[in-house]
């Protein structure tokens, strides 16, 4: 049965990672849609309504894929992680139930109005529907992050006589201190994804010499939002989240940074490969004192290394965790460089003519997805070997009677189905982008007139 844990973990990792490719676009896009709808409503500018209609089409496809790939996650708590569900359901059942009742109904109800009700309900109601989608999707993100924050940093629980956990205070659960950085960091990362995608589509139109008015709006909105988000991701949210890990999960922090040995005035490793045989970083490039300075505001402060903790509490895959963390940080830094350059050119009104930068913007669209995925890998691998930090080990959370063969079968099934879904999604989105904002608008009016 040992391998069943591995298949269960891989299946959850696959389904959660694939699912999150969709909401990270829609949550951020909801914010940008409200911005466009507000400009259209109060600025009396029909251009912004046309812009919003184009992005609503992208939103609709993405949202549909997000919904269908989201259901397996809730189900898997029961199907593959039954002992965890039984153990922690008294706490996280609350947040998952709230998500369904407060967020999902709000989203799905107003999505109907956003997609099918623009003519029927008028501009104010349509703006309101966009706002409700923003609130619904960000609430949904909130309840999921509350659930994850509790697994990272359990609060507000007692252990009952039968060994399972019960919630003691909903307020304490919903205001877990872990949320202070994790929630804004995650939501701003989703804004970054949508802003980069918007700028990339703008760059594509600009470079192709089509839809000039739309290209300008997509580029300027995308670049400003992406620059703001990229900066906020590093400071204060990323910095705060990192310090929180060092405070509550010091062994995880040590693995992030590849600190094998406790030292005073620890340096920060920029590049290098963790070597689990010798417990060192091979070929490292290190800047002295910086890690101590970042974490403890003191160049000579002691940073505890992995050697300060028993080996069975180390994250079980230190190199993967280390790489995921460094991919996230590295990409985050590159995003700041790209978006500040684009922002400068936008300010000088030269962005539309700067071909090389437009190419960079267009090709950078996949990278926020990679950074978001690496960020979640950092959070989830960093929590190992615990499912609920300090309380329940991952190997103790599986379903006792689901054999490894069954878990492997469904893992492979998901792999095949999701490969197909990924292709279909890319096809549908590229097709929509290729058709462009104008054409659909004309056919819409032609259809309405006929």
């Amino acid at each position: 049965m040992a391998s069943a844990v591995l298949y269960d973990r891989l299946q959850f990792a696959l389904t959660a990672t694939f699912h999150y490719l969709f909401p990270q676009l829609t949550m951020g896009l909801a914010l940008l849609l409200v911005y466009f709808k507000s400009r259209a409503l109060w600025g009396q500018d029909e251009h912004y309504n046309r812009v919003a209609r184009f992005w609503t089409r992208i939103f609709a496809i993405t949202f549909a894929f997000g919904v269908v790939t989201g259901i397996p996650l809730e189900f898997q708590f029961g199907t593959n992680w039954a002992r965890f569900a039984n153990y922690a359901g008294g706490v996280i059942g609350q947040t998952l139930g709230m998500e369904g009742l407060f967020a999902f109904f709000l989203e799905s109800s107003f999505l109907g109005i956003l997609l099918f009700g623009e003519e029927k309900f008028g501009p104010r109601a349509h703006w309101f529907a966009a706002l409700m989608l923003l609130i619904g999707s960000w609430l949904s993100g909130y309840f999921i992050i509350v659930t994850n924050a509790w697994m990272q940093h359990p609060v507000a629980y007692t252990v009952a006589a039968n060994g399972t956990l019960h919630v003691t205070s909903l307020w304490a659960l919903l205001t877990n201190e872990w949320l202070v950085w994790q929630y804004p960091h995650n939501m701003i990362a989703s804004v970054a994804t949508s802003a980069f995608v918007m700028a990339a589509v703008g760059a594509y139109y600009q470079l192709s010499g089509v839809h000039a008015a739309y290209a300008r709006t997509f580029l300027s909105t995308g670049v400003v939002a992406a620059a703001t988000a990229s900066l906020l991701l590093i400071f204060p949210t990323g910095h705060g989240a990192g310090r929180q890990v060092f405070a509550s999960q010091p062994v995880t922090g040590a693995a992030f940074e590849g600190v094998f040995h406790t030292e005073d005035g620890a340096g920060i490793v920029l590049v290098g490969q963790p070597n689990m045989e010798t417990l060192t970083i091979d070929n490292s490039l290190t800047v002295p004192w910086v890690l101590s300075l970042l974490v403890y505001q003191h160049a000579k402060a002691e940073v505890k290394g992995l050697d300060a903790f028993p080996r069975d509490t180390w994250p079980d895959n230190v190199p993967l965790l280390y790489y995921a963390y460094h991919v996230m940080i590295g990409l985050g830094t590159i995003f700041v460089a790209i978006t500040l350059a684009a922002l400068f050119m936008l300010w000088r009104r030269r962005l539309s003519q700067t071909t090389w930068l437009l190419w960079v913007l267009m090709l950078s669209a996949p990278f926020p997805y990679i950074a978001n995925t690496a960020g979640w890998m950092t959070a989830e691998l960093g929590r190992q070997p615990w499912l609920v930090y300090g309380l329940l080990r991952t190997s103790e959370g599986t379903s006792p009677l689901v054999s490894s063969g069954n878990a492997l079968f469904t893992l492979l099934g998901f792999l095949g189905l999701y490969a197909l879904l990924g292709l279909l999604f890319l096809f549908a989105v590229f097709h929509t982008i290729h058709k462009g904002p104008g054409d659909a608008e004309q056919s819409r009016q032609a259809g309405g007139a006929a």
Partner: protein
Amino acid sequence: METLWFAIVALMLAVYVVLDGFDFGTGIVYLFVARTDAERRTVLHAIEPVWDGNEVWLIAGGGLLFLAFPRAYAAGFSGFYLALIMVLWLLILRGVSLGLRSHLESPLWREFWDKVFALASLLLAVVFGAALGNLIRGVPLNAEGYFFTAFWTDFRPGPAPGILDWYTVLMGVEGAAVLTVHGASYLAMKTVDEVQRRARLVAELGLWVIAALTVAAILAIPVIQPGLRRNYDAHPIGYLLPLIALGALAGLFYCRRRQQDIAAFLASSLLILGLLGSTAWGLFPNLLISSVDPAYSLTVANAAASPAGLRAAFAWFIVGFSLVVAYSLYIYRSFWGKVEAPSGDYGEY
């Protein structure tokens, strides 16, 4: 408090079956009642603004089951592992087919997704019926409160049954028949002309099938799960629920004869609520009945979360549920009435 939560979870799931049931039913009858592309787009337009919201009742119902009875959630979901994963795959294919179908003009592309949509809807209806059959028949829960069932063993209900046996297959067919009539009644109400004529025909013929299958399913209960009568004997007021179902079935025959489409749809909704309500009345206090030893059954008493947690959850449930009812009424009122042929809204992307 546990009893109240049993009622809440049962209510959420029953509303789910009524609401998502009509769009499953629409999928089942889709290829038959809508022949041309224009007809198919009209039929899809009748469910497009609402199907996604209907599916949320399943997710929310599942979430509340997890909240109130974590032990039953853990046991049930891991025990029906294979069936549930296939439900997920079918739900995914069905949702994607609705999203992508009208994306391209190509008739082949549309035909392909139309068939995926119809087949996934039919299979899901059968699976949900069979799932209800499994709850009534019982599952091989062991002393630790877990079980695992294969798809089928020898097709006989017994101490070691499969997910499919003759009884659960019967229930699966019954489920598909009830949802077929429900979906056809919905379309008869929402459409006009040829599509409406065909939908009415399906609804009328399907009624006889439902009546026959329901009699068979009821006759099987003393063999399958005699304990289901216990609550009815103790509290005869429960007989009101099957009477409601019976009245709704009679009402369906009556309304169908007079082609009163709105009343017929309401009657078929009431029929579903009556049938599920009758089952829930009989099952209480059991959530999962053990076919191995009745002492291993999971009940509202031994599977519930803490009383304090349930009380706290009830407070926010009332607030959230009122909001849900308000939006749902608003949305259904907004999209009320006959559906027009779509003019190329965002559904076409």
